């Protein structure tokens, strides 16, 4: 597995020495991330001159980038499709099946109509179920059926779900912390 020399251009899976598939063990990724950073982090080279610092910075950045992509299921799926020559092209290709779009519209309406924290929590639960379903489907398309070109559609669907669940969460935040509460900004409330 390690025969091929690692370079900054190695892909994320090679860099983390894990099989190039959707199913991953988060704990193993986390452990590997820390192991790699132990070798490459600029702190390890703080006393070693500019050239070593520059190298360390590049490697450390690359390792963090790969870790972000590998640990996040949606990013990982998109990356796998891309590696397999089936890019997502999220900006240019937004064609989705009609029933999926209808479900999206119903969700949006439900969010607009939600008047209590419980309403939103219920919606969030539905969205989470849809997410789990989409992830499972994605795993099957990528790891079992080896059909990245079909997985692309599933990844796009997950991107919709992700964006929507973000909106739901921020509505939930509004309920839990009214927007008048400005803690965390650098402004001074006196």
């Amino acid at each position, binding site marked *: 597995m390690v025969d091929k020399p690692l370079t900054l251009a190695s892909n994320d899976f090679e860099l983390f020495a894990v099989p190039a598939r959707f199913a991953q063990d988060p704990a193993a990724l986390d452990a590997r991330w820390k192991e790699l950073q132990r070798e490459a982090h600029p702190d390890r080279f703080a006393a070693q001159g500019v050239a*070593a610092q520059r190298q360390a910075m590049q490697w450390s950045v690359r390792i963090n980038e790969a870790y972000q992509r590998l640990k996040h299921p949606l990013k990982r799926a998109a990356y796998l499709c891309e590696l397999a020559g089936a890019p997502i092209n999220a900006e240019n290709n937004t064609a989705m099946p009609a029933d999926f779009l209808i479900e999206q519209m119903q969700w949006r309406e439900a969010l607009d109509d939600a008047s209590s924290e419980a309403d939103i929590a219920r919606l969030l639960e539905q969205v989470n179920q849809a997410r789990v379903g989409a992830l499972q489907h994605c795993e099957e398309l990528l790891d079992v059926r080896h059909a990245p070109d079909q997985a692309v559609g599933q990844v796009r669907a997950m991107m919709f779900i992700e964006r929507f669940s973000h909106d739901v969460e921020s509505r939930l935040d509004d309920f839990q912390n009214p927007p008048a509460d400005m803690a965390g900004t650098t402004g001074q409330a006196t």
Partner: protein
Amino acid sequence: MALLQISEPGHTPNPHERRLAVGIDLGTTHSLVAAVRSGVAECLPDEEGHVILPSVVRYLDGGRREIGRQALRALAQDPQNTVASVKRFMGRSLADVADREHLPYQFIDKPGMLALQTAGGEKSPVEISADILATLRYRAEDTLGDDLVGAVITVPAYFDDAQRQATKDAAKLAGLNVLRLINEPTAAAIAYGLENASEGVYAIYDLGGGTFDISILRLNQGVFEVIATGGDSALGGDDYDRALAARVAEQTGVALTTASDKSAFSMAARACKESLSKQDSATFSALLGEQTITQRVARAQFEQATTALTARTITAARKALRDAKLVAADIKGVVMVGGSTRMPQIQAAVGRFFDCEPLNNLNPDEVVALGAAIQANQLAGNRPDGDLLLLDVIPLSLGLETMGGLVERIVPRNQTIPTAMAQDFTTYKDGQTALALHVVQGERDMVADCRSLARFELRGIPPMVAGAARIRVTFTVDADGLLNVSAQELLSGVQAQIDVKPSYGLDDGQIAKMLQDSFSTAQSDMRSRAIAEARLDAERLLLATQTALNADADLLAADEREAVLAVMQSVREVLGSDDPAVIEAACKALANGTESFAAMRMNRGIRQALAGKNIETI
């Protein structure tokens, strides 16, 4: 009374190779310097035995200045020229200082960062901080008996790019080589975690004089991973003093008109607050001119006057937990940092929210400096096999202004650093040849609500139809949390780049000028210091290269090895030179000449990390 040192078997340090590095807590109300000596981190005292240096500088005419305790004594009598809590002004413009009417200073509104008019002339917050840092540097050099190779300086986790850059500039001005800026709560976690061999998820609640930070960290086998960080860079113990002073002024009907009255009142408030941490009621006593104001204050009254402040810290803690996707029950312990956490209402509020007893077993005033010293010692290379690894995050999102004054987020907050993230943009007009980029930091959607960090332009884009150009903007955040932005038009290759510095920080020219203006630094001193520093750098670089050769010379072909040895030799030949530029040029040649060797070594290191793992798993 030097003690004989005994080292661990196999770790005999060569005394000449031991590199002195310190940790500095540059605090709002006070500052400390600490170092690892004989394997133990400790704060270094001044001649009178005090480890705490009040962060107060008084400027007098003729270039005289008083720093620390002496300046603090003059605070009430000469408030205009005696600068306290200067940290609040670092990287800040006048408009940012919300309570400026209540402060006794003569502010000067300057683009980027404000300045103060004093009897000693105009002073920027960077210069004032540099005076504090230089005092600590001299203290460390006197105590340790040698020059420092560098320092780790702590900043609030919630400091933005401008505030971090200002801190680094101040260190440079004080003649310190900054090994790393690290976040205060992270430093506290290092001191605390190593002391107690803790594992698990901890919260660090850090209420300093002028800033509040909350960080959630995972501690695991020497790795300190910051999961989320939050806080408020304009909330601290000083606000509690002010709230108490305002309450007493209201109760007694005293109108505070002069600067010295205000100053006397806030000092009285601080003393009263500190007493209230130990007893249920205390006497507030301030001397205003001829008149002494006294008032009995019950702790309950004080707590009531400051409830809103305490609540703000808990709201920030809740937000950090949510960012970490955790709940209070996941937190194994809360480490309390900063003298202000001695207030009983803070201890109680934290205990209630996290449902556990706050951890207080290290001195909350010293814990940050101690952690910084441990990190400095490791960064200086004194523990080559040290297993401490810090994985910190960026506290605030970074983005660019897009059409309509909206922010496009490029680097989201709580991203592990160092990091580089890119986003592609395009032109919106036919034949557009330039693109203005406005870099902002903050969590709000509108540019107007975020902090503006820098503006720059990408010029020379070949004329194309609207939307055809592909401009990739890359944000790179280094391990100090400092940002660099570059932009490139991908079809033509036109590039622009900026260290996010000129708009809010000081450029190198300004720093050079400040160094020259500094009364304490005569021209000849500057030159000899520059030569000494260049030599030190060169020796460090030679040593590092030699160490690298000893370990991995087999990576190089014979001619490559010769080439490295040759550039090393040319550095050695100029070591005796009186011209720092000559030494620096030779060092630069050495750095360039070893670039590919460094790359090969890095690859080997990474491969070894993987190989080790594979053997384990087989």
